[in-house]
């Protein structure tokens, strides 16, 4: 089969819709266009039935009851609803939230907002491999702690946090546990009961569903969790999230969950095999480093630093043909490289030199071969024009140089 370019390896940013998902959605734009809240005619009933069915599909993927699923516009909204909603609902119990430094901005910035409202937030550091320290987590809990917010799998490095251990600690202290499952749900088995999750945000477009739809899982039994609505209006989603249901989006989300449920095991194995091959191929280069824990990791993610070349410059060498992300942001607005990589303790130089690979359902072996070759060639070419590489090869310690910071 001929290789079609460009190759998409940025599946942590978003995934294409699976054609099976699109097929399921299409009728709900045209002939089945009803408002799921229209109680008095068949258009409304048809839409409501579709939403109910999708709710079952979504719930099933994470081992939840359909009544525990609140549809939102995406994971960012679900993150906001979980954190702000718990903060408001449980204000009488306390005002302290524990999270960690490698969370997605949707969690971190929401926590910053909570601080402005007078809440207390502890940002746990992570070890060099990206995992939090469970002892530190437990020590951070006070009698004012109402919520632990730790992500399932990280979007930049793919590291999976010890979810079951975290939930045990949360239970022991009577604290709610929220996890941002955006990158993990549909990719690895997530079971809200076995994992002890009280609230979880996730999104359709990271699992081959459409953009603009996500969900918040809110536990109904032992304990019964409630969140204060952040969107007021018609009282949809049991009053927790008003707004007309995005019926086609929700139908697509349901179908996407069903496909993931059926294919996850085989797909996970296929992806981790391909990812490992990609990694092994690129690690043939000198001074290449894998970022994050390699054992507790999502199967489709790799994050590699190629020392002495800058990530954005590196991507320019192949971004016509390969789409992926870099941890470097070389703009005058922000010279700061990825805060996630910096939280691992990486020097700015390594953080600036990183590439993030997100493999997906439509990634092929041929694409991986092409990628290994194209990236290796670009790294070698750019090192030939890197003054830092030359210094490294001459044995000069780069830390001994007094750099002109700007």
């Amino acid at each position: 089969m001929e290789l079609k370019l460009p190759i998409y390896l940025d599946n942590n940013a978003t995934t294409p819709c699976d054609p099976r998902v699109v097929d399921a959605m299409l009728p709900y734009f045209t002939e089945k266009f009803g408002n799921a809240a229209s109680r008095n005619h068949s258009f409304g009933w048809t839409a409501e039935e579709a939403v109910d069915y999708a709710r079952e599909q979504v719930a099933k993927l994470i081992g939840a009851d359909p009544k525990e699923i609140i549809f939102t516009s995406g994971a960012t909204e679900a993150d906001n609803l979980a954190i702000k909603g718990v903060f408001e609902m449980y204000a009488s119990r306390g005002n302290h939230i524990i999270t960690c430094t490698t969370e997605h901005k949707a969690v971190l910035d929401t926590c910053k907002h909570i601080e402005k409202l007078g809440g207390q937030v502890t940002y746990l550091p992570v070890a060099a491999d990206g995992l939090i320290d469970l002892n530190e987590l437990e020590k951070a809990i006070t009698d004012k702690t109402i919520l632990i917010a730790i992500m399932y799998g990280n979007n930049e490095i793919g590291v999976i946090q010890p979810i079951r251990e975290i939930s045990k600690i949360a239970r022991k202290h009577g604290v709610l546990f929220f996890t941002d499952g955006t990158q993990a749900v549909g990719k690895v088995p997530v079971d809200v009961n076995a994992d002890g999750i009280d609230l979880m945000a996730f999104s359709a477009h990271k699992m081959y569903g459409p953009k603009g739809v996500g969900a918040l899982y809110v536990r109904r039994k032992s304990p019964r969790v409630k969140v204060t609505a952040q969107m007021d209006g018609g009282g949809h989603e049991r009053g927790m999230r008003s707004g007309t249901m995005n019926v086609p989006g929700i139908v697509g989300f349901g179908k996407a969950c069903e496909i993931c449920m059926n294919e996850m095991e085989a797909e996970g194995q296929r992806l981790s095999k391909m990812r490992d091959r990609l990694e092994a191929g690129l690690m043939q280069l000198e001074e290449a480093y894998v970022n994050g824990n390699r054992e507790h990791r999502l199967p489709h993610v790799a994050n590699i630093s190629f020392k002495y070349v800058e990530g954005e410059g590196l991507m320019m060498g192949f971004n016509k043909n390969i789409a992926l992300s870099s941890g470097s942001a070389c703009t005058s607005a922000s010279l700061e490289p990825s805060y996630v990589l910096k939280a691992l303790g990486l020097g700015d130089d390594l953080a600036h030199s990183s590439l993030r690979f997100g493999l997906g359902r439509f990634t092929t072996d041929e694409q991986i071969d092409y990628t290994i070759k194209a990236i290796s060639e670009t790294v070698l070419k750019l090192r030939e024009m890197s003054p830092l590489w030359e210094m490294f090869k001459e044995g000069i310690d780069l830390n001994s140089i007094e750099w002109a910071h700007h």
Partner: protein
Amino acid sequence: MAYSEKLIDHYTHPKNVGTLDKSKNNVGTGLVGAPECGDVMRLQIEVDEATGVISDAKFKTFGCGSAIASSSLATEWLKGKTVDQALTIDNMDIVEELNLPPVKIHCSVLAEDAIKAAINDYRVKNGMPALELEEKKH
């Protein structure tokens, strides 16, 4: 962000990549930027002592495509100019020639700094006082 053809050409086929012998008296070396900031440029000039004309220029750059293209362009412009003429190269000339987007203007500033640092190194080596350089905002 779409880059200009000229910029992409300089990135794909950079001119004058390499190293001059910095121990030579007629070679000036400028090393600017920092690894933490994501760009480091090393720009070198070789001056014909009889004529005062820059006979060769080389660079090596760690940085994004705009930084690489800015330094490649700078070396092209330097060759054939006298040292005094070289001092008149302004970062905005580079911005215009490569059509750098606003967020990449700092790359051109860095290239101008590298030119001036190389010239100063050459001047100091040859018993001339270093020039006071105005600080440009990066």
